[in-house]
């Protein structure tokens, strides 16, 4: 067994409520993703799955818990310590963290800088990390565009001139430009047309195979998770209620809440009343 790409332990996040008191968004969540592996995090809205995604990329500061990528503890972002370093060292630490985990957001209509063309968007990312200079950078941009299936016309278009699917391809290319070890996808196909959604899923599967990047796939859509992940973590009200290999969790669920989620997926002969019944059962516990 190879060393896991991502190890998360005891993640916890609470928010202050306006009327006093605190609400727990994420409560003692732990999981790991093997190198080149793929983990699905599923749950309803308010289950805390998006908070977990944002904690992973440093956009939300957890109250407790550790995150390690390839065995390295992720240096705290702006927490403590940072001030002691000089600006050069802080910059290096920031860029180092960026190369560990990247993210693709749900809504491609607002997750791209409206001013930059696809090519400029990628150049900005490459220049920031300084791995490619001059002609090498130009070559790398073409490589990235090609990898996500964007052509010549799209390369010089601003987001406004791209379709939803093309924008999401660009957002993926932007994340890959940094060459992360883990890629978080926060409902990344939920806003797309069905036929486009499948194209992006296939693209992600290809990228995972080619680059060996580990995926964390946050989604409310169990059917999508079934096809793109090896393992699944089910979250309810901030807690992990069930975790295991995706096929096992979704085919023979042990937790009642997982069963509730599964009952809501339409299929031939589907009866939505089943969900109502399971919800009532769950409420009695």
């Amino acid at each position, binding site marked *: 067994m190879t060393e896991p790409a991502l190890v998360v332990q005891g993640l916890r996040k609470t928010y202050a409520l306006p009327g006093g008191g605190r609400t727990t968004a994420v409560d003692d969540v732990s999981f790991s993703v093997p190198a080149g592996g793929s983990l699905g995090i599923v749950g309803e809205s308010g289950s805390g799955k998006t908070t977990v995604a944002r904690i992973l*990329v*440093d*956009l939300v500061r957890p109250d407790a818990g550790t995150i390690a990528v390839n065995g390295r503890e992720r240096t705290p972002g702006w927490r403590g310590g940072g001030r002691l370093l000089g600006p050069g060292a802080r*910059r290096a630490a*920031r*860029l*180092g*963290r*960026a*190369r560990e*985990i*990247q*993210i693709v*957001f*749900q*809504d491609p209509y*607002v*997750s*791209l*800088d*409206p*001013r930059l063309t696809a090519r400029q968007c990628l150049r900005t*990312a490459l220049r*920031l*990390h300084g791995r490619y200079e001059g002609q090498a950078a130009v070559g790398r941009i073409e490589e990235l565009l090609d990898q996500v299936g964007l052509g010549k016309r799209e390369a010089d278009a601003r987001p*406004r001139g791209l379709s939803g699917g093309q924008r999401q391809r660009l*957002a993926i290319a*932007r994340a890959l430009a*940094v060459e992360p070890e883990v890629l978080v996808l926060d409902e990344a196909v939920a806003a797309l047309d069905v036929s486009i959604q499948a194209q992006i899923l296939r693209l992600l599967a290809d990228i995972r195979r080619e680059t060996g990047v580990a995926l964390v796939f946050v989604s409310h859509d169990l059917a999508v998770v079934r096809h793109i992940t090896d393992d699944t973590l089910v979250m309810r009200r901030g807690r992990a209620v069930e975790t295991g290999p995706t096929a096992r969790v979704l085919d023979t669920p042990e937790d009642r809440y997982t069963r509730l989620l599964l009952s809501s997926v339409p299929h031939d002969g589907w009866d939505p009343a089943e969900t109502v019944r399971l919800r009532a059962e769950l409420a009695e516990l």
Partner: protein
Amino acid sequence: MRTPDRPARARRGGPVRLARGTTSPHPLGTDASGQDLLSRVLYGARSSLLAPLALLALAALLGVTMGTVAAWRGGWVDTLLSRVTDVMYAFPGLLFVVLVIAVFGDGLTTSIIALGLAYAPTIARYTRSLALAERSKPYIDAYRVQGMSGTRICVRHLVPNLAGPIVGYLVVLFGEGLMSLATLSYLGFGAGSPSIDWGLMVQEGQDAVVQGALLPALVPGTAIAAVVVAFNIVGVRVSDRLGKGR
């Protein structure tokens, strides 16, 4: 600049005459010193239009910086800047300017700096509201996740994306700035004789009104009004155009 008559020559030319109405060499008449009004209005346009530009540049630099920092940092920085802005807002602008002039002496440069300081809070407030909305967009998050520093995100990406609405707002403010500067000149705090400035011209033309010659005050006054109205209309158009399609 092409003018019917060079103002300096117009000044030297001939004996002192009373202000005259429209004649063929002087389509808008002359002022009390016999100087061609059309030439003076056109010539005065230079300082009258350049001064508000300088004023806005200063106000925009201060205001956009303050507004962006307040929106980006939040917390106590935002509270402090908001308080400062509130105080400046509540303080009558003209009174503030007159105070600055009283301390540092009059003149065009002092007027510009004083007005620039007075305008900065309005721009800061506007920028802050725009920047708050913009920074909550995921593309800004994406830059942070890429490891970009806050300063660089603000300077290179956040502020440029606000440029449209801010420029539109500045165009509208331009008219207001021109008015304020003209008011100061008129009151005798701004540009003083012998410089040519629309506000000053109105003041100088006042005496002629008593003698029944309206043009010396009316011509520069109309120029001020026309520019203010024009910039208001253009400003609204610009911000509509730039704000759209993204």
